[in-house]
């Protein structure tokens, strides 16, 4: 909490970071079943059932229809908005055979090749990426 006078101010700052969804309690609540669904893919027998019929498997989970459709579409930015956490969503993309770089690049609007080239060249600079309000 250093630097903040109360929890509301602490949480409000998280909305001021460009292109970032901090995994707050509000997101954790919203995404609880989405993340537990993703976690279930840790087990080989669940992965098999998922791969055999994605829609039937996901319908067994008490998620919103919006969350289900975003999973089926592998729309990871949307899933972050709907309460998904990247370490849980990783179970979905690893089941698809994607690496972190391949999956993460889909959230940036860059091709995998361009994203990898950016990383090798030193990564994305924080300049202009720190704050929406402050634009720094």
């Amino acid at each position: 909490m250093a630097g903040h006078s109360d929890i509301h101010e602490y949480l409000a700052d998280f909305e001021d970071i460009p292109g970032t969804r901090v995994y707050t309690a509000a997101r954790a609540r919203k995404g609880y079943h989405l993340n537990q669904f993703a976690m279930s893919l840790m087990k080989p027998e669940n992965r098999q059932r998922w791969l055999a019929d994605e829609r039937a498997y996901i319908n067994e989970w008490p998620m919103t229809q919006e969350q289900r459709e975003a999973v089926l579409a592998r729309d990871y930015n949307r899933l972050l908005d709907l309460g998904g956490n990247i370490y849980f969503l990783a179970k979905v993309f690893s089941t698809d055979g994607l690496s972190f770089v391949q999956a993460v690049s889909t959230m940036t609007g860059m091709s995998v090749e361009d994203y990898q080239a950016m990383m090798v060249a030193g990564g994305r600079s924080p300049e202009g990426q720190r704050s929406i309000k402050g634009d720094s």
Partner: protein
Amino acid sequence: MARITAGVASSHVPLLGVASDQGKDRDDYFGPIFAGYDWTREWIAKPENKPDVVILVYNDHASAFDMSIIPTFAIGCGERYAPADEGWGPRKVPDVEGHPDLAWHIAQSLILDEFDMTIINEMDVDHGLTVPLTMMYDKPDAWPVKVIPLAVNVVTYPPPSGNRCWALGEAIARAVNSFGEDLNVQIWGTGGMSHQLQGQRAGLINAEWDNMFLDKLIGDTQDLRHVPHIEYLRETGSEGIEMVMWLIMRGALGKSTKCLHRHYHVPCSNTAIGHIVLEPVDGSVPPSPTLEGNNEAAQAAI
């Protein structure tokens, strides 16, 4: 008496485990990363440095813990831990042997010191714990050290503050110093450095900030205690917050440290690799501020 002889920090990117397991650790991409650990592998194998026990501070990445239970600080008091199946089958690395006597002593001592630890007797350990072992020991048939896992929640907000992590480190040092057996104990902080794995800002790296952080682990400054979460988020990406775990290591090393070895490399996958080996110069930590911690009868009982 047990004593903390050194602190080691390292990133724990899962791809490093893959590189080691598939024999790619000296190729063009991974070679420069692993080369930065050669010094440490030689140092840690020398009899005068070899730890009996490592307190390994790490975070679980939706492996042992799902969303149903989220402990802020958890200590492993079990006999052994198997590598977790993270979705591709478990890494083919040795099981991790615990040190239940010291672990339970630390757990009791921390609770009396008002750190309300979660105690874990059974769990699997993921890349957060096994990758640092690989980086320090390569590919042995059995890990040559006993390990006390100390898991920190850095996934669901809020994680513990940097100040709280540092103070936990100090309490760990008090606990180790009061353990009767003569043991060489190291504490490792893992995770980081700058990285962001999500959203349009993914791929963020901040070498300048990371190196400032490394600088401030050395000597007697305690500035890093006061870095707020929002600074990690803005400057080091959404997953850079893992660096608060390094402050548990730093706190346990006491008043002042010197740097024995340091390594920084970009990139590994989406992440900046950082590694540092520190030795306490003045390892003293403040006395416990709590009643039970100052109570000789209570302390004698643990």
